[in-house]
């Protein structure tokens, strides 16, 4: 009951934030059909989060209910002052149906995912400890920038804005942080679903006109009203999985030859299956493999250790990592709304969104400061939420803005420039302290993606998208301008090839890049590299690049052709094609280059780019489905619809089976005392697995008000090490070294901390231990089962002799320094 109430609080707070800024959103996204109603919650949370963050960074606010109230108050004043309150309220009254559907969708998706999450709430494994540590650090510190819980004395060097927003709601709602963590997942799920629905609705409605209902002579077409069309978008984008689910089921059933499965070459299902009556895959963590469908093989045929990550939204929610790419989802959709608004432009058809009416051609356009700040806040916020998203949606917004103009002039370019400047300046305090792990671009020489695996990943989206493209091309073939498209599409491909070649040559010729050469080329000699490249890229696996280039060509051709036709501003197809184009770019780029990071492989680049491509293509797919269904001939629409349904059904197989599997058939995956427990408390499992630590952590959270560095055992990543700092938010000397290496780009900050902690626990000499404690400002020492296992007993006596024991239970002692 308490947790249901907690869920209600979160719904109320999110809705309240949305209502606070609704007048502002109504004005700023005024050219969208729904005036941004679907994303007003995201706007509200962003504004409140930003207001709190910037004022806290300046020292004016702390993370308490009072501080959050101040942020609410400021946002309310801004929303009221710069918005159109009375018109916004009238709009709600006039569009009750849309409002009701949106609200119901949000409640259902929020509630549903909270329900799912309550059956597998454990905050353990993968990146959850890191995320939970950030959240607890923000909650405990209360000021910005928050301290890095895994490197005492330093601020977090990561994009932590999403955690600030979740921590704000957690603090204001009064729930504990483990419950807040899981409710955060549910909230993001709900916000994303509603945002995608709203975006699709806007696109469809704009194509459809101002009518909110569609009546067609053929009764089947009544199903294609904007609402129905729009609801497909969250189903595809959020609820659906990739085709790996279908493959797992087929493999489980024993269907398909060994040759086929070996040819497909997806891990764990790359062998001949045995016949079975079961539908549900039985393999432990079978659903994980959907995020690893692309398999890179080295030149010698061995599998690359660092597999490219092919995550998609449902997988992320299922896994339950509150990672930045997931936290940013609602705001990514919001950014696409902004891009659409920029594309559509001013209602009166005069000048553009950022500029007010220019008096004459010779005058500099005046700037609508409010709009500039609003859009800059949203676009720029992506860099603070998930830095990889910022350039992508800056590109979409900028190109969308230019696409929507009849004539592109200097003023428009200045507008884009100002948008970029504002979006960076608004988040300047973040940039100051941020150390990026990216360090340049490297060529992807030997690892093209096989078309089969690419289609397993994106087939659910690409089938409807390609079908729509074919239909669109066939319908308008007479006036499609292919030349421009070919130049753009093929030119893009050539450009990427050239960049890759140039980088390769640079690596081979520059001796100071010797260290990189091995990671890119392996043991392949320069002379053999070319033949290997031709073999892999031209003979064995050219089809992904070819396929994507073909889509680029068609996309660009169609878009330019539509733009050149009259009444361009009433058509959103160029914008949708832009989304498709961007998705293709995002999937084509990793075929040739990738961002250099601590992994030295394209794993992360594929992850980040494929993820955004999924979002973009899901919107395109839903639009395409509606468009063919509504405008296509009945036969074509039926055929197309059937194929799409089959594909979608295949994708949803993953959803159903994976959720069932993860939640243990909705009986609860968490065991306490032999009973399955359904709870949102992500630390409840500790009562079963480590009761002593659980009690100690609870005591620290309740009674250790004073901040201070706590020493605990140091170990590897993705383990139980750093558990105390993770679950309490107290900073520790060193958490997961691997993660710190990624964030800091080197060992300089934390080089000898691990050995210092080992010495602290092991030495019998108090003066040595005292020196270490002074050096790292350690106030508390945690002595639990892990420390007793890793360090020798003889070193513990000194703590009893020289420190004050403030807590003890069966296996845990906590000491405080005098």
């Amino acid at each position, binding site marked *: 009951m308490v947790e249901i109430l907690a869920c209600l609080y979160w719904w109320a707070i999110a809705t309240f934030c949305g209502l606070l800024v609704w007048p502002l959103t109504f004005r700023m996204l005024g050219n969208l059909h729904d005036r941004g109603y679907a994303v007003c919650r995201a706007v509200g949370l962003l504004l409140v989060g930003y207001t709190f963050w910037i004022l806290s960074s300046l020292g004016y606010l702390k993370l308490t209910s009072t501080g959050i*109230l*101040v942020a609410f108050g400021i946002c309310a004043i801004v929303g009221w002052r710069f918005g159109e309150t009375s018109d916004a309220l009238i709009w709600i009254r006039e569009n009750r149906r849309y409002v009701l559907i949106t609200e119901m969708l949000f409640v259902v998706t929020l509630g549903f995912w909270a329900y799912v999450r309550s059956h597998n709430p454990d905050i353990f494994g993968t990146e959850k400890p890191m995320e939970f540590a950030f959240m607890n650090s923000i909650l405990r510190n209360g000021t910005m920038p928050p301290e890095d819980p895994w490197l005492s004395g330093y601020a977090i060097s990561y994009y932590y804005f999403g955690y600030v927003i979740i921590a704000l709601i957690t603090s204001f709602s009064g729930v504990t942080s483990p419950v807040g963590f899981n409710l955060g997942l549910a909230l993001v799920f709900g916000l994303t679903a509603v945002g995608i629905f709203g975006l699709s609705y806007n696109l469809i409605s704009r194509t459809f006109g101002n009518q909110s209902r569609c009546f067609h002579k053929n009764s089947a077409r009544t199903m294609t009203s904007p609402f129905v069309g729009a609801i497909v978008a969250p189903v595809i984008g959020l609820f659906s999985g990739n085709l790996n689910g279908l493959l797992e089921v087929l493999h489980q059933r024993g269907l398909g030859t060994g040759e086929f499965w070996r040819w497909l070459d997806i891990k764990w299902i790359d062998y001949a299956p045995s016949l079975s009556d079961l539908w549900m895959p039985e393999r432990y963590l079978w659903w994980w493999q959907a995020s690893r469908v692309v398999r890179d093989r080295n030149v010698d045929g061995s599998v690359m250790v660092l597999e490219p990550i092919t995550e998609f939204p449902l997988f992320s929610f299922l896994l339950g990592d509150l990672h930045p790419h997931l936290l940013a989802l609602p705001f990514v959709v919001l950014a696409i709304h902004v891009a659409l608004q920029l594309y559509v432009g001013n209602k009166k058809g005069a000048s553009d969104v950022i500029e007010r009416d220019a008096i004459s051609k010779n005058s500099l356009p005046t700037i609508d400061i409010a709009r500039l700040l609003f859009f800059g806040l949203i676009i720029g916020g992506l860099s603070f939420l998930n830095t990889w998203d910022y350039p992508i949606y800056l590109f979409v917004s900028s190109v969308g803005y230019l696409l929507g103009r009849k004539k592109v002039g200097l003023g428009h370019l200045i507008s884009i420039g100002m948008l970029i400047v504002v979006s960076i300046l608004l988040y300047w305090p973040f940039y100051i302290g941020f150390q990026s792990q990216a360090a340049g671009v490297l060529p992807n020489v030997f690892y093209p993606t096989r078309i089969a695996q690419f289609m397993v990943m994106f087939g659910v989206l690409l089938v409807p998208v390609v079908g729509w493209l074919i239909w669109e091309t066939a319908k308008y073939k007479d006036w499609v301008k292919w030349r421009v498209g070919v130049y753009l599409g093929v030119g893009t491909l050539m450009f990427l090839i050239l960049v890759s070649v140039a980088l390769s040559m640079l690596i081979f010729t520059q001796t100071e890049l010797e260290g990189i050469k091995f990671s890119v080329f392996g043991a392949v000699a320069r002379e053999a590299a070319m033949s290997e490249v031709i073999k892999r890229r031209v003979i064995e696996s050219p089809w992904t690049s070819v396929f994507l280039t073909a889509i680029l060509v068609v996309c660009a051709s169609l878009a330019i052709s539509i733009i050149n036709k009259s009444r361009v501003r009433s058509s959103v197809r160029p914008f949708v094609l832009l989304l498709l184009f961007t998705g293709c770019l995002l999937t084509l780029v990793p075929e040739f280059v990738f961002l250099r990071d601590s992994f030295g492989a394209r794993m992360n680049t594929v992850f980040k780019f494929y993820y955004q491509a999924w979002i973009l293509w899901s919107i395109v797919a839903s639009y395409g489905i509606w468009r063919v269904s509504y405008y296509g001939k009945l036969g074509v629409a039926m055929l197309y619809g059937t194929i799409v349904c089959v594909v979608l059904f295949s994708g949803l197989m993953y959803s159903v089976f994976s959720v069932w599997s993860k939640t243990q058939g909705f009986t609860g995956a968490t065991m306490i005392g032999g009973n399955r427990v359904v709870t949102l408390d992500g630390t409840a499992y500790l009562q079963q697995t480590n009761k002593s630590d659980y009690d100690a952590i609870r005591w620290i959270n*309740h009674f250790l008000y004073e901040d201070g560095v706590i020493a605990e055992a140091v170990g590897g990543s993705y383990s139980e090490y750093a558990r105390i700092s993770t679950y309490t938010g107290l900073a520790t000397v060193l958490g997961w070294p691997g993660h710190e290496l990624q964030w800091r780009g080197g060992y300089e900050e934390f080089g000898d901390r691990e050995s210092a902690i080992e010495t602290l626990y092991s030495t019998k000499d108090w003066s040595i231990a005292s020196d270490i404690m002074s050096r790292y400002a350690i106030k508390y020492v945690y002595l639990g089962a892990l420390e007793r296992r890793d360090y020798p007993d003889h070193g513990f006596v000194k703590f009893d002799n020289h420190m004050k024991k403030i807590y003890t239970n069966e296996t845990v002692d906590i000491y405080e320094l005098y």
Partner: protein
Amino acid sequence: MSFTNGLEIEKDDAGIKNALWRTYSRDDIGIWFDVCWWLVFGAVGILLRFHKLGSLPLSDIEVENALLAWLIVGGQELVDINWLANSALVYFTQIIIFWVTDVANSISARVVTALCGSVLVFTPFLFGRHLGRVGACVMMALFAVSPSLVMISRTADGMAISLVCLVIALLGIERANNLKVRHGIGMVVIGLVLGIMCGRSFVIPVLFIMFILFRNTYLTKQVFETLRTSNFNGVLAYVLIGLLVVTSFFRYRYGFMVLAEPWNHWVLGWSSYSSMHSELMIPEMVFLNQPLLILLAVVGLFISQNARSIERNLLVLAICGLLYGIVYSGVQSRDVVWVIIPLYVVCARVMIWVSQSQWSGHELIVATVEGIILGSLIVFGYIVVGGQEFALRTADYGFDRNTIIQVLVLVGMLVLVVALFSAGWSARVSMVSVMIILFVFSTVWSIHRSWTMVEATNGAHANNWHKTWNTGSDKLMLKTLGNLSLRYVGHPREVDIKVMGPFNRQLAWSLRDFNNVKWSENPALVSYPSVILTPGLSESIIMDSRYMGQEFQLYHDYYAHSNIVAKDKRNSKSRPSGTNFDTIVVWTRQGDTNP
């Protein structure tokens, strides 16, 4: 002979309205009467507010603001402040006073509040249009001697300033309603902005003003229209000034949070967990301090031929205030004003009706006789039942049957006297006499209560307002510390003092003049300061044998909330569950002449 000789009483039956719109002439004796009235009661009010202003120590709420103001004036870093002040306007004015006068003590901390309280006494004059001469005089007298308003004026928690701001806002509403729209709206905005900076005490006024605006749609539209057409420029100026005030020119950055804290505090106050007071505190204060006034208001309304809806609305407001005081868990003693101010207005309007009465000489004599009898009965009743003690015993549910019977008999006799005079002569004359007597005695009683609270340095009669009072030992302790300082370092305020225990604001305020005070919860002595202060009953602190201690029973009563469950308490080691500073031990090194 007419009672009206010398007084300007309209002889028509037009009712209150004519009395309200009467203008003055220089020859009126009434003017002199009014002037004397205002002077006398004004002086009484001011005296009650300023006399022994610093006798009671600063309460916890007052210290939050005063200590912050002192730290800012002293130029100290505010990084380690872990508490939030509760009233931006209070600490801002305290900063100015401390800085200008170079004196930081209980008196200077409260002087602005007392000034505002004094100004409040004269505010009924501003509502003369609605109250008339008589009503304004009556209200002014009630304001001047009201025990609750006196204590509010002597407590620097922002309430007195809030009431002044409320007056400004209400005046603005009144002006705006009378077609001076812009002028009025400006006053409303000023009142609201200043009031919001007063903190928790202005939450109810804001809700009240919002309620008025909600009911008065014309005015609300005018407000929004004015703000919109002015393009918010004026509001911007107010906001900027407000920012400078709440952050004290950006020295106290958490001043932003101080603006929002009242609302958070008020909402949390509805939670029963936060309840710190008895549900009957407000009724007790109202009935203890204003019993006759309540009777005056209720009876007067009942019998007044000119009772209008406005009086009934005011009575409803008073009842709402009473209910709020009972229901709201976080109620403070200052919330009694939401009951008594509507009552005062009702009483003022009842007395207007009384003053309109026309008397013949015979009626005057009858009324006087009746008044004497009633007065005697009341005095007799006070003597018999022991006055305040009876009320306290009753409030503690310590019913004394004999006393109850005596009270009932007295009440019966009072009713009998009124009935006899009503039947024998005139009901009107009888009731008017009752009203006058009630007013006179309630005023006298209020003066008595106020003076008692002001005079009592041990806070015995002000225990609803202050939870701490002087034992005298605090001054003794400070003197001892001063002497120690002279002995050790040759300066009365420079000795090293270590306080063992969590930071305590009241103690910090007491020790504010000492420049080398350090706080530490660490019981172990890493260094050996000259003087150590420890909470007297701490179990976890065992002093070094080189130190010798002297205990002082202070006025302080501080405790830390702790909701330790049994198991956690068992596992907790060396962590005190709370620290009690009402007894302090001062430790000094034995045999040291030079540290």
